[in-house]
Structures are given as structure tokens and as C-alpha cells.
């Protein structure tokens, strides 16, 4: 499909220009994915932080293109400007990565969590330059497209939108980049080399674009640029080695470099010293509290923490870091502590509390934690089979290399089998029934982990259990204090679990344990019975003994928790398409940071779908008041329409990913393919529409029809998603088609919006503004849908709310018909 677009474009554009445009999209996507992953390794990878990074990205690109649309008309030779922007980008890419590793508070130093303010600042530091140049580049390219590659010849006003073709080629490049990254680069090539590679391609392309001028003065300027990039390349190659291999031997130069870099960074970030002088101190005191807190959170990060990184590894599921301190090995993924070697206490507690609940466990399924030492505790029970499911093969590989021998031993026990893959999928297709299923996973802070805490998953687990089987998992909690958001989260879990199992038992503690049984009478809160089982099974544990059990199961405490859970009126059900739990976790996280965002997020919790109708009311008022006049309003209406369409695209993308994961499991490549389908749709849509000559009035009708159709899609989408969950085998094809369709709608409306917005403005300028609106809309869509609408209103509710917002854009768009 993309080749069709390309061949069509080839009629108009020279090949090197087509390649440069495609490369622009490819570079953009790769830079986005690599840098986002790099940032998430520092932030806690929850939905809010992902949306924040995405928003920073999109808004900075939008700023770049807004800047571009202001500057573009003044540029005499856009093709050369395009070439130079590629050259600049090539230098900035590796630089951004260095900034990410160097300036951000704590890449190897996972100590303190960062608040949203610090995240925003860090993301800006890392992304701003790359994004500004990227956004600028789009506008310059659009303007260059007007020249058809013939320098010196001014382009006339053409009916066919060259901006649309630029958009199409960029999207096609993004598809290629996405495929390359998801299928190869993420797992096999480190981030530095990936970015440096993209940089080299950009330089080659820039040379091709600048070729006619290569022999004059600018060629001399090229030399230092090339030298700089070559230097960065060499450095980056060394750095990769240093990351993956040489740290193991820790050669002197490596540790020296690390300590020098950290020292310098310490100094950079310790803004404290700035505030020592009285002049600065008074200024500092005048800053708003939120700003001061952000600054102090940046400065207070212990940069010397985790002195000994042992290994870095690229994994498709997120950057992995292994650290070692006084013989304790810890594993981090995307900045989250996965597990640590010296944690017998947690392992004993998680393994024995679960297996002691069953009178005679034989077949056991363990999701997560098998390589971390949980398996070793479980095989102390008289079980016959233990199936351990782990998602990331890279983690298993690293664990085998770095964990101490005694922790790995149980994995060679003949009863233990290790399965690599998605646990949810495994449970769905589990053949023989299990006596006990134990989930050992982090709290549901993200939509992906939340899949293990939903009603649908509990029902699947129910089916995978033997008649007297039990399900066990744990959440962060408290042993003595039951209120606030943590209680709300526990209460929601209790209700959800109760929907699938007839009996359950909750044990309060720093880790709260949830047990659910298929038959009443299996679970027991009586510590004597469990202590008796412990003794009869001859289990020797360092911590879990009869006194521990007596304390953990203290009736006084359990009754207080149950009472608090029953009194919690706000609790809802957590389901695949109504993932409220990750909203709770986001709130807990914001509470912990005493962030100013905690309160607004809490205030949003009574949100209802009809709130989205408010903008329609406002739009009606605006249209009514301005009746009889056209003009001024239309520009804004076009931009709002473009933003609404951008947000619509992101909403559908998020919902499709959510539904796919519940239907088919977390399949990394398939998720990449879904995103590629959407991008391909963008390319096709904008390529097809750009080739048509469409008048202004006709464009207005198309835009309105597009908004209406988008609203309609939002209305029927919940039905489609429900159907997909009913027939999982259809999910890949149905969702890809839906995303392709929606992508082509979004892509197709882009040139239409540019035509509408253009009026007296130049094409590239209009393109820049519409592009910016599209990106801002997408960013808003990502934040609003991902953080608030989907968890609180559910997939269906978010979709209906989207329809209402599109309705508002539609009403405003009616003004376009006035001319």
C-alpha cells in the first residue's frame, strides 16, 4: 500500500526527496520509541507517566511545527533547509540519549520516585530539541514539496495538497520504523546504536538533498558536522559495549568514566548550591510551592545510589538493569524493581501462605516470580507439578547468569517447568486443572498488569482450577491502617474477586493477601489449622512459623479490614474494559508524592459521560451568537476539528490495544503490528485524498462528514470491542481492519483540514498549523483517555464521551458552511 503512495508521489517528487520524507517519519518514530523507553526506565512506568511523555513529545513537535509555519515563508531555499534540518537531527539524536542517561535524575540510581513535575522537566530536557527540530522539519518539507525539487522555481498555488503527500510519506516512514523497531531493533540493537544508525541515514539523506551545493562553501561546514557525528558514533559503539559487556569485568576506565559522569551530574543537578547565596535564596523562596518541590525533588535524588550496575540489556518489554550490592543482585525493568536475590522473607510468605490454604496441593501454577526464588519455596510442599510462567525471556536469561546458584537450583527440579509467555494467555488455554494458582505480580499500576486483576481474568482462573482449587495474589497494603485510596483499591479488588469466586479470604499486612476458592469451606483463617499443615508437610522456613501465622491471621485485624472494605462506598468492579484499578494506583502514587495533581484527579472520580456534552452546549452557544458572520471563527473551527480527529485516532488506538490484550494476551509483536496498521491507514488516507482536487466548500462538507463518521465509529466501537472479546480468534483481523479504517479517516481528513485552513495562508504554513493541532489533539486524547476516561468511564463510556466531544467539534464546524 505504501508503495502505491510512493509511486504516485514519484511522479511529482524526485526520489531523494521521497526517501528523505520517508526517513523523516522513520526517524521520528524510532526516536520517539527509543527515548520514551529510556525515560520510562527512570520514571515509574505507569499510565500517567507514559501519557506524560507522549504529551511532552507531541506538544513539542507541535511547537516545532508552529514555529516552522511562522518561519517557513521567510525561507528562500526550503529544500536546503530540509537537508540541514536532517543534518541537525542526526547530531541531536545521540545527544538526546546522552542527555537522558546523564542529566535525568537517576538512570542507574533508582532511588527516589519522581513526581509529575520532575518528570515533565526531565522529559522536556531530553525531548525538546529533537521534537522542535522534528516539527520544524515537517513544515520545511511541506514547503519544499511546493518546489517539486527544482531549486529556484517557485511553486504556484496548486489544488492538490502537497502537504497531504508529505504527511502520507511521513506516515509510511513511521510504519517502516515501527516494524523495524518492534521486530528487530528493540531486542537486538541497543538504543544508542539504533539512534546513531538513524542519524547516519539522516546524514546520507541530507547529503543527497544538499548535493547540488556540495561543492561550494557549505561543503566546508559539512566536515565538522560529519566529524561530530562520527565521533558520537564511535562513542556510542564504545558505550554499548560498556553497557552490556565490559561492566562485568569493570575495567578501570569504565568505572572511572561512570564516576566522573555521575560526579558532574551531581553538580549539575545539585541546584542547592545556587540557593546558598542570599540573593538566590530570596528568589527561590518566591517560587510557587509546586516549582520548589520539583526543584528539590530533582536535587534530593541520591545519585550515588546503586553503585554497581552489572548489566544492561535491551528487551522488547523495557530496558533491564541488573545491579549488585554487597552480594545482593537486583533486577529492574523500566525502572521498576522486579526482584532481588536476598528476599527469602517475601518468597516464603508468598509461597507458604498460598499453598498452606489448600488441604492437598498437587498441581500448582505460578505466574511471575518463579526465577526469583518463589519456586524454591513452593517445592518444599508435596506438590507433583509446578508450572512457572514468565513473560520476558531476557529476564530469565539474565537471572540465570546473575542470580546465585542456590536460587537457581529449584528450576532444575523435575517437578518444575518454566513457560515463557503471557500468563493471562496461559491461564486461558490451561489444559489440566490446577489446585493452586499464585499470581506474583506488581500492583496493577498499568493497563497491561491490570489484566491480571480483572473480573474476566478471575473467571478464566476459575475455569483453570480444580473443584477445590484456590487463587492467591497480593497487593501493597497495611496491617493496621485501613482507609484512603489504598483501601479503595483493596475494596475494588475484593468486590471484583467476589464476582467470580464464592468464597474469599483477605489477610491484611504490608502485603495484603487475597485468597479465593471455588468451593466454600476450603479457605481457612484459623492459624492452628495452617500451622498444623506446615508441620505435617515438614516445611522448614526461616520466617513463616506458627507464631508468624498466628500474627498474620489475627482475627481482630482481619475483622477491621473486612469492616472497612464493606464500608467503602466508592468501590467498583475492575474489568478488562473498565480498568478502574490502575486509576486507583495512579492516585496512590500521586498521594505518595503529595503531588498537586492528586486532588484534581480525585475530584474527577465522580465523572459521568454526560460531562462530555458540556462542550456541545458551549459550541451551540458560540455558533448561535456568531450567526450571520463567517470569517474569524472558521480558522479556529478547523483547528479544533483537526485536534478532535487527532484525539479520536488516539482514543481508538488505545481502546483497540486494550481489547486486543484482553482477548489475545500480551503479544508484543502483534501490538506493534496493530500500531503499524493505524499508521498505514494514516499514510493511505492522506495519500489518496491529497491526489484529489477538492474545492473549499466541498472540503467543508467532507470535514463535517468525517467528524460525523468519527462520532458514529465511537458509538459502534463498544459493540465491536465486546464482540471481539467474545470471539478472540477474530480479534487480530477485526482490530487491524478497524485501526486501518480509522487511521485512513484521520489521515484523509488531514489534507482536507489544510485546504480549509489555508485560505489566504501559504500551504506549508497551513500544514504546520493543522499538524500542530492534530498533535495537540492526540496528546490531549492520550492523557484524557488513558488516565481518566478509560479507567473511570470504562472503554464504552470513554468511547461515548469521545462521540460527544466530536459532536462539539461538528457543531462548531457548521460555521464552515457559511461562506
Amino acid at each position, binding site marked *: 500500500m505504501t508503495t502505491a503512495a510512493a509511486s504516485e508521489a514519484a511522479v511529482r517528487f524526485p526520489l531523494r526527496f521521497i526517501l528523505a520524507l520517508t526517513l523523516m517519519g522513520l526517524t521520528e518514530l524510532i526516536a520517539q520509541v527509543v527515548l520514551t523507553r529510556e525515560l520510562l526506565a527512570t520514571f*515509574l512506568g505507569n499510565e500517567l507517566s507514559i501519557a506524560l511523555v507522549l504529551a511532552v513529545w507531541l506538544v513539542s513537535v507541535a511547537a516545532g511545527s508552529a514555529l516552522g509555519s511562522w518561519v517557513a515563508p521567510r525561507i528562500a531555499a526550503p529544500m536546503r533547509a530540509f537537508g540541514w534540518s536532517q543534518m541537525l537531527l542526526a547530531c541531536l539524536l545521540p545527544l538526546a540519549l546522552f542527555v537522558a542517561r546523564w542529566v535525568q535524575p537517576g538512570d542507574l540510581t*533508582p*532511588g527516589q520516585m519522581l513526581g509529575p513535575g520532575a518528570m515533565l522537566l526531565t522529559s522536556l530536557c531530553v525531548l525538546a530539541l529533537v521534537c522542535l527540530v522534528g516539527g520544524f522539519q515537517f513544515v520545511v518539507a511541506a514547503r519544499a514539496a511546493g518546489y517539486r525539487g527544482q531549486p529556484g522555481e517557485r511553486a504556484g498555488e496548486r489544488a492538490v495538497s502537497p502537504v497531504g503527500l508529505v504527511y502520507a510519506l511521513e506516515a509510511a516512514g513511521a510504519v517502516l520504523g515501527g516494524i523495524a523497531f518492534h521486530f528487530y531493533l528493540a531486542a537486538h540493537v541497543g538504543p544508542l546504536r539504533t539512534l546513531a544508525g538513524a542519524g547516519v541515514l539522516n546524514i546520507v539523506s541530507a547529503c543527497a538533498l544538499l548535493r547540488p551545493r556540495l561543492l561550494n562553501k557549505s561543503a566546508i561546514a559539512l566536515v565538522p558536522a560529519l566529524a561530530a557525528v562520527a565521533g558520537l558514533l564511535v562513542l556510542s559503539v564504545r558505550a554499548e559495549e560498556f553497557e552490556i559487556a565490559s561492566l562485568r569485568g569493570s575495567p578501570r576506565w569504565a568505572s572511572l568514566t561512570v564516576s566522573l559522569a555521575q560526579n558532574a551530574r551531581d553538580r549539575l543537578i545539585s541546584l542547592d548550591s545556587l540557593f546558598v547565596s542570599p540573593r538566590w535564596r530570596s528568589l527561590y523562596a518566591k517560587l510557587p510551592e509546586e516549582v520548589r518541590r520539583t526543584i528539590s525533588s530533582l536535587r534530593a535524588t541520591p545519585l550515588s545510589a546503586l553503585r554497581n550496575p552489572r548489566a544492561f540489556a535491551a528487551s522488547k518489554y523495557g530496558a533491564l538493569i541488573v545491579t549488585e550490592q*554487597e552480594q545482593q543482585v537486583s533486577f529492574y525493568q523500566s525502572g521498576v524493581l522486579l526482584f532481588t536475590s536476598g528476599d527469602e522473607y517475601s518468597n516464603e510468605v508468598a509461597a507458604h501462605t498460598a499453598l498452606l490454604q489448600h488441604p492437598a496441593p498437587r498441581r500448582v501454577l505460578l505466574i511471575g516470580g518463579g526465577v526469583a526464588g518463589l519456586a524454591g519455596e513452593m517445592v518444599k510442599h508435596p506438590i507433583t507439578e509446578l508450572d512457572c510462567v514468565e513473560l520476558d525471556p531476557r529476564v530469565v536469561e539474565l537471572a540465570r547468569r546473575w542470580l546465585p546458584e542456590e536460587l537457581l537450583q529449584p528450576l532444575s527440579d523435575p517437578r518444575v517447568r518454566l513457560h515463557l509467555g503471557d500468563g493471562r494467555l496461559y491461564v486461558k488455554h490451561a489444559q489440566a486443572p490446577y489446585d493452586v494458582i499464585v499470581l506474583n505480580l506488581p500492583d496493577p499500576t498499568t493497563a497491561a498488569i491490570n489484566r491480571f486483576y480483572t473480573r474476566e481474568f478471575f473467571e478464566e482462573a476459575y475455569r483453570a482450577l480444580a473443584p477445590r482449587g484456590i487463587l492467591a495474589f497480593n497487593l501493597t497494603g497495611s496491617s493496621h*491502617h485501613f482507609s484512603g485510596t489504598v483501601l479503595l483499591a483493596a475494596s475494588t479488588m475484593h468486590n471484583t474477586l467476589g464476582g467470580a469466586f464464592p468464597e474469599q479470604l483477605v489477610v491484611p499486612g*504490608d502485603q495484603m493477601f487475597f485468597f479465593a476458592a471455588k468451593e466454600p469451606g476450603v479457605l481457612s483463617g484459623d492459624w492452628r489449622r495452617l500451622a498444623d499443615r506446615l508441620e505435617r508437610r515438614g516445611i522448614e522456613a*526461616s520466617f513463616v512459623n506458627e*507464631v508468624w501465622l498466628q*500474627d498474620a491471621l489475627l482475627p481482630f485485624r482481619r475483622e477491621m479490614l473486612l469492616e472497612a472494605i464493606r464500608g467503602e462506598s466508592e468501590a467498583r468492579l475492575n474489568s478488562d474494559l473498565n480498568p478502574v484499578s490502575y486509576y486507583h494506583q495512579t492516585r496512590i502514587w500521586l498521594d505518595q508524592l503529595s503531588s498537586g495533581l492528586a486532588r484534581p484527579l480525585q475530584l474527577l472520580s465522580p465523572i459521568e459521560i454526560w460531562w462530555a456534552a458540556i462542550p456541545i452546549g458551549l459550541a451551540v452557544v458560540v455558533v448561535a*451568537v456568531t450567526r450571520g458572520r463567517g470569517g474569524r471563527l472558521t480558522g479556529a473551527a478547523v483547528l479544533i476539528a483537526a485536534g478532535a480527529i487527532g484525539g479520536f485516532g488516539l482514543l481508538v488506538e488505545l481502546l483497540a490495544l486494550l481489547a486486543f490484550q484482553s482477548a489475545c494476551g500480551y503479544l508484543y509483536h502483534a501490538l506493534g503490528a496493530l500500531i503499524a496498521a493505524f499508521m498505514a491507514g494514516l499514510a493511505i488516507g492522506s495519500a489518496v485524498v491529497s491526489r484529489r482536487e477538492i474545492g473549499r466548500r466541498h472540503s467543508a462538507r467532507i470535514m463535517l462528514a468525517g467528524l460525523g463518521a468519527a462520532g458514529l465509529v465511537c458509538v459502534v466501537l463498544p459493540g465491536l470491542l465486546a464482540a471481539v472479546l467474545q470471539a478472540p480468534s477474530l480479534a487480530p483481523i477485526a482490530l487491524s481492519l478497524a485501526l486501518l479504517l480509522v487511521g485512513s479517516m484521520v489521515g484523509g481528513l488531514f489534507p482536507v483540514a489544510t485546504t480549509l485552513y489555508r485560505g489566504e495562508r501559504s500551504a506549508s504554513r497551513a500544514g504546520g498549523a493543522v499538524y500542530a493541532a492534530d498533535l495537540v489533539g492526540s496528546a490531549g486524547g492520550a492523557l484524557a483517555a488513558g488516565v481518566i476516561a478509560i479507567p473511570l468511564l470504562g472503554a464504552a463510556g470513554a468511547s461515548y464521551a469521545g462521540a460527544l466531544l466530536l459532536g462539539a467539534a461538528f457543531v462548531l464546524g457548521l460555521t464552515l458552511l457559511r461562506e
Partner: protein
Amino acid sequence: MAWTRREVLRLGIGCALGAGALGGMASLATSGRRRAPRMSQPDSGAKWVRRAQYYEKLGPRRVRCVLCPKECEVGPGERGFCGVRENQDGEYYTLVYGRSASVNIDPVEKKPFFHVLPGRPIFSFSTAGCNMECKNCQNWQLSQSRPEQLPAMDLPPARLVEAARKQGCSLIAGTYAEPVVFAEYLLDVAREGNKRGLRSTMVSAGYIKREPMIDLCRELAAVKIDLKSMRDDFYRRNCRGTLKPVLDTIELVKKQGVWLEIVYLVIPTLNDSDREIRDTARWTREHVGSDVPLHFSRFHPQYRLKRLPPTPYETLARCHEIARAEGLQYVYVGNVPEHGGTNTYCPKCGKLLIRRQLYRIAENHLRGGRCEFCGQSIPGLWS
């Protein structure tokens, strides 16, 4: 085509009114059914308000709190840093007298007290609020909340002591968040308990001024102080407090003859250097004596320090070794398998006196507070 000023105004006002009306409807529609009923109503909070014992008047309406070294100066209608004390018309009040936000029963070893009635349950309670803000707080939901944000149990001292007795506890602890901020409440609980034969303890960070601490020492049977670091810099950065007052409190408790145990939470890379551990042990020996138990406890990633790993066993073993080498007689480390750091040994004959497996007392060779083997007296509250 161009808009007149009047029209712009009309448009603006129309939008504002529309939005205001819709917003009002929204809040009306939702307020009725969403309000959580379990929260204590503002007016019912009045029964927990008591005149504070430790403050000075500054002019007609301002006060200065002299309970803790923060010495907050509080204007009318404002609260101190802890959020549980309020200036009402020039007088200072505590808002949490009898307002327990958390009640629990723990093994006494969980506090940890190792030289206080081994194996006994201890009735533990806490209100909201804290006069510090530690980045690794275990009880952040309690400590960083204001009283009205948490559901509370009405447990005035007499009722609390009665509840503890009913649950079979002979020990009471003000703990979890920070007992300093509910000093008046704890004081009266301890008095009431002393009348009825229940002994009270305090599990605190020790960030308190001298006068109130002397009052508390008169009533309490045992005090556990969390010494978070031996560096003032650590206190300032991670706790929003300072070191000196904490050291003063530790010395004061010892001088007042109240049973004292010190806990040092070892946080990897933040306060785990050999030097700092040695300074801690040395200070303990020189200022309160080598027979004061010093516990090195294990950090678990939580609150804002979620991304640090738990303390390595080796680190804890190292701390144990350093403190023993400094001459401390009762050094304990928590949760290290096969280390024996939770056991009590006789400083004279070196024999094992109390073997603990987490909270279980596996062996106890103390007879009337003396070593069964050589008769050496072991300090603590044993009966």
C-alpha cells in the same frame, strides 16, 4: 465581519454562565450520592479537641508551639507543620485527643522491643499526623494526612485502656505515625494504664523538646527511638528534621531511667557507610551505655523510595559486626536467615539466652531477668 466589543463580551459572559450552570448541575448531581459516609463529620471532630499543653502566646492571637523542635509559630485559624494542632482564637489546641486512626495488636518483637516481656502482644494505636516527613515512611497514609481526612475511632484514654485489657494485652504502644504529635493523649493513656496495671510505651523518632519528653518519661515504661542517621544532612534531606534534638531525646530517656531501645533503619547507599555505622555505635556506647540494645533493621522499598532495593544481608551483617566491635552488648539485626542476629546472648558467659524466630520465642533462658547459666543480670523489663 469584525466583532464589536459588545458582542465579544456577550459571547464571553454567555460561555461563562453556561459553563457555570452546567458545572453547578454536575456538582449537585454528584454531591449527594458520592460523599463518603465513613468520614467523621466536621462537627463531630469537636469532641477530640483539647487545649494543648505545650505552647506559648506571642501577642494577642499568635502562638508558638513548644512541643517539638520545629517550634511552629501559628496564626489564628492556622495549624502547625504536623497538621493536628490548631490555633483557635489565640489558644492552641490538639485535634486528636482520643481520635485513633489506627488500632492494632502486634507481637512486642514487631515494634521492635527485644528486652520487654518477650512474646507478649502489645496494643498499638496512632492518630494522624507527623512532625517529620521521611521519604521512606512506612505509614505515609497516616503520617501525611490530616485528622479529618481519615476515619477515626473514638477511644478516649479510659476506653482505650479497657479495649487493650479486653484483648488480653498488658502493654500499650503509641506508635505507627508519630506519638509526639499526640503527646497529651498518650500521656493520659499511660496514666490511665498505670492505674490499671497496663504499661505504656512509645515508638518514636524522638523529635521532641525536653519538657514534654520529661513528662512522658514519668509515665512510660519503655521508649523506642528511631535514629535515622548520624548525619544532620540526612535528617534535613530525607526527613525534614534535624539530628541534634533526636540525640538529646535519647540521652534524656536514658537519664530518666526509662527502658530504652534504639533502632537504626539501614537504607542502602543512603546511611549504610562503615563510618556512619561506627559513629552510631560509638555514640550509643559513649552517651547511653553499651547495654542499650541497638537494632539494625532492614529497609524495604516503599513510599517515595520505591526504587531502592531492600538492604542486602551482607550490609546488615556488616553493621552487626561493626557495632559489636565498638563494644555494644546487645546488637540485633532483623530478618537475616541463619545469622542469629535476632538472638540475645549473655554478655558475660556468651551463652544463648533468647532465641527468636521472627516473632517466635524458640528458647528463653532468662530467670528473673538473669542469665540462667551464670547469673548475669540482663537489663530490660522482664516481668
